[in-house]
């Protein structure tokens, strides 16, 4: 049957019209992508329209601040070189101690950036039982996709952790009850940065203590010689 004899075929748009319509749709989508979507969602503003339309603040509100990704030099210094049972690092370990207050039903995450194979020691205690999940997110992995290592309710935990991949690693603590809970965490390890993520999407980077600062605060008294 030729197209001329088919009444339905006569109502269909021609290939040329379809191409034109697709082209226009593509053009509009591209314009919207570069003028609105990229500036508003990712802070990428190649045409300056994000700044002109006031869209840039949307991206900063949604994403800032991100956990600091180490520079290549920092990453190399925090990557262990295994020699038998010993892991050698090019930099000293860091120290961190912090306390959190979890209001009723609130949750937070606290994570360190560790290179693959890097270790840390940790101890945390809470004033009441918490929903707990120790987990990690891979560098460059999809946002919000985490791998759990220990997912049990508990009130305290003390241990050592060796990162199974480069990324951010730490704890999710949720207060399941109507009373305020205090959490105290102390760690030491070969991490490069720390970030607190709250239930209301607020984020707060924590400053880590260098080993020099810890030792400088303690006066070392030489032991008296044994007679």
């Amino acid at each position, binding site marked *: 049957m030729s197209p001329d004899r088919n009444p339905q075929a006569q109502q269909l748009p021609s290939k040329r019209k379809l191409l034109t319509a697709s082209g226009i749709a593509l053009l509009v989508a591209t314009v919207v*992508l570069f003028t609105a979507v990229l500036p508003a969602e990712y802070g990428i503003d190649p045409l300056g329209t994000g700044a002109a339309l006031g869209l840039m603040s949307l991206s900063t509100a949604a994403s800032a601040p991100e956990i600091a990704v180490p520079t290549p030099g920092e990453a190399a210094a925090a990557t262990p070189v295994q020699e038998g049972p010993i892991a050698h690092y090019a930099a000293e370990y860091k120290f961190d101690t912090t306390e959190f207050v979890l209001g009723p039903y609130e949750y937070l995450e606290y994570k360190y950036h560790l290179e693959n194979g890097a270790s840390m020691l940790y101890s945390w205690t809470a004033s009441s039982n918490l929903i707990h999940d120790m987990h990690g997110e891979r560098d460059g992995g999809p946002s919000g996709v985490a791998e759990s290592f220990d997912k049990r309710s508990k009130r305290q935990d003390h241990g050592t952790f060796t990162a199974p991949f480069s990324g951010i690693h730490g704890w999710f603590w949720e207060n399941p009850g109507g009373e305020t809970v205090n959490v105290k965490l102390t760690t030491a390890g070969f991490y490069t940065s720390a970030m607190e993520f709250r239930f209301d999407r607020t984020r707060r980077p924590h400053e880590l203590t260098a080993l020099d600062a810890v030792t400088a605060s303690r006066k070392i008294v030489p032991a008296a010689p044994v007679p």
Partner: protein
Amino acid sequence: MMRRAMILGTLMIAFLGVTLLSAHDEFRVIGTITKLQDSKLEVKTKEGKTISIAMKKDTLVYRDKQKVAATELKVGRTVVVDALGDSIDELLALEVNIVPAIVPSPVK
């Protein structure tokens, strides 16, 4: 030529779709219901901020870990809302938990 244009168009639409979908973040809102209207819930937080949250038909409502009807949501009740959105001002409730009223902790 046309096939190429169609593939390019489809990829562009898929990219835009992924871009828009990936924009949603998870939020938790804890507070007291101050207003219930159609499919909207207004919750006043302990910080005094009133947050408007859209509800959908399949938004889950729980009380004491048991699923209950949305009619259990009433002004004055304390709720914990887990929601998705681009910002705190544009939220869609996934789950609403009705919890006992929160008694403010004494100042230490």
